[in-house]
């Protein structure tokens, strides 16, 4: 369980973190943000999205395969 959790977190970091930053940056750009407003929005938003993404990954990854 510990190993699986650590692996899921590592994968979420290596793949999910850049993806969440890119995703938030794209949303911010589409919303017309630029400059420092965009920077702060991405800094805050990407973290929230990554946290939700990690929760999702754990939800799927920690499913009991026996049931």
């Amino acid at each position, binding site marked *: 369980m510990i190993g699986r959790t650590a692996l899921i977190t590592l994968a979420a970091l290596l793949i999910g973190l850049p993806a969440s*930053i890119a995703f938030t940056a794209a949303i911010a750009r589409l919303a017309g943000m630029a400059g*420092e407003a965009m920077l702060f929005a*991405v800094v805050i938003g990407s*973290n929230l999205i990554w946290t939700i993404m990690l929760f999702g990954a*754990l939800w799927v990854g920690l499913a009991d395969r026996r049931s």
Partner: protein
Amino acid sequence: MNRKAISKRLLAIHGALSLAFMLLISWSIWTGILAIYADLARPWLRADVAEAYGKPAATAGELLAFVNDGQGAGPRWNIVAPTSLRPFYGYAGPTATSAGKPAVLMANPATGLRAPWNNGEIDGLFRRVHTDMLLPKPWGRFAMGLAGAFLVILVGTGLLIHGKQIRDAWKWRRSSRLLDLSESHKRIGLWLTPFLLVMALTGAILGMKVIAAPLVGQFIRAEAAPAGFANATAKPAASLPIDYCIARAVAAVPQVRFAGAARDGDRLDIRLLRLKSLQWSGEGGGSVGAQCDLASGRLHVTQDRPAGGAWGAVESALRPIHYARFGGVGTMVVYIVLSLLCLWVVDSGMMLLWCRESGDRSGQSVSERLYRANNRCYVLLPLVLIAGQMITPHTPWLSMTCLVIAIVALSLARTRGLLELPTAYAAAGATYLLLPVLKYSGEGTGRVLAPILIVDLTLVLTGGWLFYLSFSRARAGRLAPSLGVAR
């Protein structure tokens, strides 16, 4: 998926995340307490800092003359203005005695305070162990940010595991010790939810932004258009005083105070803080600042309002909220007490987890022993740190390292019972109680300040708590054979 299956999955996430990252999560809370405690411990340990409390601060110009022994200030330096909890300037740059090499000092010309600052000694250590875990950037900061994200998930899953959690918020079943533990974990955890979420979210963003901010920064162009010239009147430059520039900058932007300045040749960057708002100077959207040309005397307000709109305002408020940099000593005490309760929620949760998994064999698993060793370090490391600082003015790194190795080795070995002897608790408690005695016997009572009294109180309370544990263990030891209970 029915409700029971959802609860089961949430509990699995809650438990697995706790078990996999138990030390990181626990460290983030404990070191966070120390980081806030640093401002209280500093005047307790240093009479020269205590002396500066409440006294009018000198001007930046006087400070620069002071650190340079009356000679002119160097061409490159950075200063941070005093605050109510930090009654001295932070100075980074060469000094008269550093032979051109940069030094980082806390200095107050009014009281003659001039000592290294923000290094590995106690106050800097207390702070940096939380912000960076004493690791090079960005690793420690990122790890702390991760702990914040884990805590957010733990709080979220913990809230939703049982639907009746909120309905039973104020109920407490006390029919057994295990049930008591379970209730305290659930109830105290629920009551602390707002505080935990605020601290975890702000900490997660502050820590993990070390990755996001540089990446995004590469893609955006600085749009800082000049906000206008506050005073374009030139003044003869050769001996333009620093204080003159700072006073004009403070006057040029309404409702601000001086927060710091950095000089690079003729350019003086002045950082200002807006009054009555949650801000952190020199960083993020809250920065308000001006630039003064020391050659021509021209002042240029570079930013007269927080940048980045609402996002900038939120980002700027993260640090003051996370580090209790609003209010005063009372706010810090509330933060420390609430954080101690958070630490208890983590502890009780881990104990429940091991009880559930190990049953009668609780206390046998390596993870549990490691966690208990870590908790013992929490009690003993500050003791060695403060005692070492009192005896020599330096951090006793060697003693602390040996202590950690000894505790971990003893906790993992069969000899771990040695650490649980009532005499061991009593010895630690007595040493905690001895610290205030040593302090006041050495230099008299000194100034009576709220931070000093709080540190005295925490030392006495910790000593008293350890004595209580010693007595309760001795009593349990006496009762166990007569009741036929195997320990």
